[in-house]
């Protein structure tokens, strides 16, 4: 199922939640909608689901206009943030719900529904738990039930709203892989919302970054991380040291830092340098090392420039000893944006 969003707008009161959003999602793709809270990412997901109708614009499923079609008519599978499992139904009943509500000849036989439930429980590795109630499950297990309930109707598209938000760090990691595995096994077009960039970059084929109801950039995890198109993306995805300064004659200057910025006109600008893009170099500027701490394979360094800026530097573990006292560094790469 390919999905196309055409200049979709949505307003809540006076506050625009979506501002002329365009987005194309390929068949079988796993896409992340990434952004801070209030960026419109959940509204966009709910608009795709049919839980929210846009004020203007179009939503197309396989070229068909479904802008004002109900969620059920679109056959979406939706996983809610807090899972929204039916508390008074068993796990099996929860998963079967979408099949049980069908009428007439569309409704599968009881045996068929039971077989489908078993199949889904197996897919999410919850065999034997069909008779339990949601309150008897752990957070991670509930999430899996919600996922299989959404998949039970064989949805054209699977939509997940902050699917791992309510879980602790270890469970999050394993469920991320789980979702990837389920996606690869079913091949269903999948869109999930997250505010966690690590989650988006690790899991998704492509990431759409939203800010203030607009899409700032769409690209593969590598593209948005290594070639951020806007200052917002650069600051939001991955870690970065921010420098406010001036461009003059094709170079950006902020205190001791000077990097090329040939594409920009003279004037105020902001540069972002990733912690791992700093390197020791005698030709560079001098910084005072405050602290160098080994973290696994890397060394996390905090340094102070002569004009009082604090920098985060990431170096290999082998170089830990070289970051002491006053050292000279250069920025091998910087992203510069006009202010």
């Amino acid at each position: 199922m390919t999905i196309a969003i055409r200049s979709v707008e949505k307003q809540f009161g006076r506050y625009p939640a979506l501002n002329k959003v365009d987005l194309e999602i390929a068949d079988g793709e796993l896409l992340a909608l990434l952004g801070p809270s209030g960026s419109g990412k959940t509204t966009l997901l709910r608009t795709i689901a049919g839980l929210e109708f846009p004020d203007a614009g179009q939503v197309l499923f396989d070229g068909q206009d479904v802008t004002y079609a109900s969620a059920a008519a679109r056959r979406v599978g939706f996983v809610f943030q807090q899972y929204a499992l039916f508390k008074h139904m068993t796990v099996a009943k929860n998963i079967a719900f979408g099949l049980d509500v069908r009428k007439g000849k569309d409704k599968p036989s009881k045996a068929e529904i039971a077989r489908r439930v078993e199949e889904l429980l197996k897919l999410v590795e919850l065999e034997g738990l069909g008779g339990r109630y949601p309150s008897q499950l752990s957070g991670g297990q509930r999430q899996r039930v919600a996922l299989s309930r959404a998949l039970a109707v064989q949805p054209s598209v699977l939509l997940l709203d902050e699917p791992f938000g309510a879980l602790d760090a270890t469970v999050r990691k394993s469920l991320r892989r789980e979702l990837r595995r389920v996606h690869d096994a079913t091949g269903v077009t999948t869109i999930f919302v997250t505010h966690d960039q690590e989650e988006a970059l690790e899991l998704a084929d492509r990431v759409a970054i939203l800010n203030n109801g607009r899409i700032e950039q769409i690209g593969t995890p590598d593209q948005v991380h290594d070639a951020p198109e806007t200052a917002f993306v650069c600051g939001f995805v991955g870690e970065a040291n921010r420098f406010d300064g001036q461009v003059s004659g094709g170079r950006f200057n902020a205190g001791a830092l000077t990097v090329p910025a040939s594409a920009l006109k003279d004037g105020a600008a902001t540069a972002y340098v990733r912690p791992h893009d700093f390197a020791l170099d005698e030709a560079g500027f001098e910084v005072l090392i405050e602290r160098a701490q080994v973290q696994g394979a890397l060394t996390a360094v905090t340094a102070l420039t002569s004009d009082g800026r604090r920098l985060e530097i990431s170096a290999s573990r082998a170089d830990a000893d070289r970051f002491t006292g006053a050292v000279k560094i250069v920025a091998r790469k910087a992203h510069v944006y006009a202010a």
Partner: protein
Amino acid sequence: MGAASSKARGATDDPAWAKILLIGAVFVFLALVLILPLVAVFAEALRKGLDAAILAARQPDALAAVKLTLLTAAIAVPFNAVFGLCAAWAIAKHDFRGKALLITLIDLPFSVSPVVAGLIYVLIFGLQGWFGEWLLDNDIRIIFAVPGIVLATVFVTFPFVARELIPLMQEQGTSEEEAAISMGASGLYTFWRVTAPNVRWGLLYGVLLCNARAMGEFGAVSVVSGHIRGLTNTMPLHVEILYNEYDFVGAFAVAALLCLLAVVTLVLKTALEIAQPDVRGRRGH
């Protein structure tokens, strides 16, 4: 207080003497204002023996009052259960203009004196009221008749179910309903299979409170009833009449009966709380 006993209690517990004092004070207070009057009611009713009390309670007028009270509750409670459920559903699950006004209106019966509530109906349906002449011409009796009593009781007890369900439904949010609808369930199916099961205990609790008040309502009913013995007297009104006629055994016998109905309601409520711990602590009125 010795060091040993300080150690024995938890770090954030109050000292034992404070606990005993506070709990003791509560019990003394409860005994004075709740238990003593209850005991007095039964003691007065039984002063001339059980037989006299039973005889008094079996007077035709007393039996008529019991019947009328049960009939009123039997109409008012289901009515308010249905409309309370509708109102709570509309308020908790939907956004619309005038929602704040609706919430205020639901609370109105709590803030208005019951006597005023009764007077409103007299003003509307009474002989000198807006529809008085038309009702007289068509031989429809509302004031000083059973319909007026039911109306007044419905008015006074309207908020109980709605007030019980609104916070519960708001807390539950709408995502379960959204999930059901996104999977193809109809609105009605969603209501019966998802919304209703989630609020059933809260609904039952609200119905019990509503019922207790419906049976005990005095002020509003007193204004619209007309106090016609055997016809428009509910139990609380009948108690007052008997008492004013110095028939103490009769008055207290009917009062004891009313208390028994209240106790049955309370026992049901407590049983419900024990069976369903999550409904406990919900505020009632």
